[in-house]
C-alpha cells in the first residue's frame, strides 16, 4: 500500500519538491536582500525642509543644513531617523491610544519602560532624571541625559497641548562628536510642532 499515489507529490518528487520550496524561499530572501543593499539607504535633506509625520501628518519638524534621512528606519506614519556627522536624531510620534497620560512625567516613565526592552536585549541603557523645558512651539516638555552603549546624548518628551500625543526624541552620538552637530540636532528638536503650518521651507 506504500506505493499508493494519494497525491501528485510522490516518488522522487517527495525529495525535490521540498528542496525547491526551500530554494524558492532562500532565493526570494536573497534577492530582496540584494535589492535592499543595492539601493541607497539614506538621502540628503535640503536645508529648511519641513517634514510632516505622525499617523495623519500632524507633527512637523524642520531640518537644517547637512542632515541625511535614513529611509530604511523612517516611516512618515511613525517617525524619522536623521543623521549629521556622528550625531543621530530619532523622532517618534506617539499617540496614547491606550490611555491618556496625566502629564509629561507619565510619558517619560513610559519611555523609560520602553528602554527596558533594549536592556533586556543586552544593550546598556541609562536614562537620567528629567528636567522641564519649553520650545517655541511646545510647553511642558521634558529632557534628560541618555546613554545607549557607548553613545551619549539626550532624550526628549515633547507633549501636545492636550497630552493625547507626543513626540519622543533621542539625540545620540559619540562623546567626541562635533559641537556643531549637537547644536543642529537641538535646532531640530526646537522646531517640532503639532498641527502647525510652516511656510518657511519645502515639504517632503
Amino acid at each position, binding site marked *: 500500500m506504500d506505493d*499508493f499515489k494519494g*497525491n501528485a507529490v510522490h516518488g522522487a518528487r*517527495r525529495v525535490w519538491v521540498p528542496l525547491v520550496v526551500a530554494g*524558492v524561499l532562500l532565493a526570494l530572501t536573497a534577492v530582496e536582500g540584494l535589492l535592499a543593499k543595492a539601493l*541607497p*539607504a539614506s538621502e540628503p535633506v535640503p536645508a529648511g525642509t519641513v517634514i510632516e509625520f505622525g499617523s495623519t501628518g500632524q507633527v512637523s519638524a524642520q531640518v537644517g543644513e547637512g542632515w541625511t534621512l535614513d529611509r530604511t528606519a523612517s516611516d512618515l506614519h511613525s517617525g524619522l531617523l536623521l543623521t549629521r556627522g556622528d550625531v543621530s536624531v530619532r523622532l517618534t510620534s506617539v499617540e496614547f491610544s491606550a490611555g491618556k497620560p496625566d502629564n509629561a512625567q507619565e510619558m517619560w516613565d513610559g519611555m523609560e*519602560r520602553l528602554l527596558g526592552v533594549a536592556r*533586556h536585549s543586552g544593550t546598556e541603557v541609562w536614562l537620567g532624571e528629567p528636567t522641564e523645558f519649553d520650545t517655541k512651539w511646545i510647553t511642558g516638555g521634558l529632557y534628560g541625559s541618555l546613554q545607549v552603549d557607548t553613545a551619549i546624548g539626550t532624550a526628549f518628551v515633547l507633549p501636545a497641548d492636550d497630552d493625547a500625543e507626543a513626540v519622543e526624541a533621542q539625540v545620540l552620538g559619540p562623546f567626541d562628536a562635533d559641537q556643531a552637530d549637537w547644536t543642529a540636532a537641538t535646532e531640530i528638536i526646537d522646531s517640532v510642532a503639532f498641527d502647525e503650518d510652516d511656510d518657511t521651507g519645502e515639504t517632503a
Partner: protein
Amino acid sequence: MTAQALALPRAPRVDVRSVAFWVMIAASAYGLWTLKQNSVPTMLAFPPSAALNVAVLLSCLAVGVWLARRVMRPVQAPPWNGTWLALMWGGLAACGIAILMNTRLLSVWSQSLGLEAASDWSAALTAPLNEEVAKLAGVVLLAAVSTRLVRSAADGLAYGALVGFGFQITENFTYGLNGIVMAGGVEPFTATFQTLWIRIVLTGIGSHWAMSAVAGAGIGYLVSASGRSAARRVWVAIGCLLLAMGMHFLFDSPFLGGLAGTLAKPLINFVVVMAVYFVVRRAFRARWTAVSAEEAAAGTLTEDEERSLSRRRSRRLHLRAFPAGPEREAQARVQRLQLALVEERVPALAPAEAVQPWRDAVAEARAAR
C-alpha cells in the same frame, strides 16, 4: 477476534523520514529563534502584557483549531499530526521567514519609492508577496510529508486555513507587544488588550487564515490525483495564490480607510473565502457521494451507512441506533474503517483495487461485531 486485534491498514500519514518533514522542522526552529529574539526582551520588560498575550494566544489556539477542524474540511477533520505540523509551520516557520523577508523588502520600498508613498504602500506591497508565499510553502511541504495529507482542494483549504491561523496567532502575539511601543510604554496592559481586541474581534474574521485557505485550496487542487490536466491544475493554483495575494493587498492597503474600512476589508475577505469554501466543499461532497455509492454497490457499505457516513451528526445518530457498549464500539470501528476507505478513494485516479485491504478490514470488522 477482538476489535484490538484488527489493525487499520493504512500507511503513516506523516513520514518523519521525508525531506519535507525536516525542512519544516528546520524552518520552524529558525522561526522560533527569530521570534525569541524579537519578543522575549519585550515580554521581560512588560510581564503583565506578556501574560495577557499568552493567555489570549492559547485561548485563540483552542477555539480556532476546533473551528478549523470542525468546519473547514467536509466529512471529517484532518489528522492531528497534520494539524500540528500546519500550525507549527504557520506560527513559527512562516512567521520567522516573513520577518526576515519583510525587513528586506520594506527596506527596498522605502529606498525606491518616495517616503510618503513608501509609508502608505510598503505594507501592501510587501506582505502579500512574502507572507503568502511563506505560508503557502507550508501546504506544499505538507503535501510532500505524506501523499495522504493533502489529496484534494478540500485538504489544501483546511491545511491552508490552519497554517494561516498559526501565522495569525503568532502575528497577533507580536502585534500585542508592538502595541505597547506604539503607545509609548504608557498603560502597556491596556495597549496590548486594545491591539488584540482589534486584531481578533474586528479584523480576525478575514485575516491570514482566510487568505491562506484560498491559496491552500489551489495547492490541494494542484497536487490532487483528480484526473484534471496539469495545465488546468497549475492555473487554478496560480489563480488561488493571486486571489489570496489580492485579499492580502486589500487588507493592508490604504484603500477603505477609517473604521468602516477596517471592518469592511476583513468582511470582503471572509466572503471570498466562503465562496471558495463552498465551491471546494461541493466538489468534495460530489466525489464522496459517487465513491460511497460505488462502495455501497460493492457491498462495503449498507444503505444506512452510505447515507450516514458523510456527515458528523448523521454518523453519531447512526451509531446511537446500536446498543451502548461493545456492540456500538464495534460499529464505530466499522464506521472508522469505512471513512478511511472512502477517503482513500477520493483521489479520482486512485485505482479501485488499491483500497482492497480497506474493504477487507471493513468486512473483518463487521464479522467481528
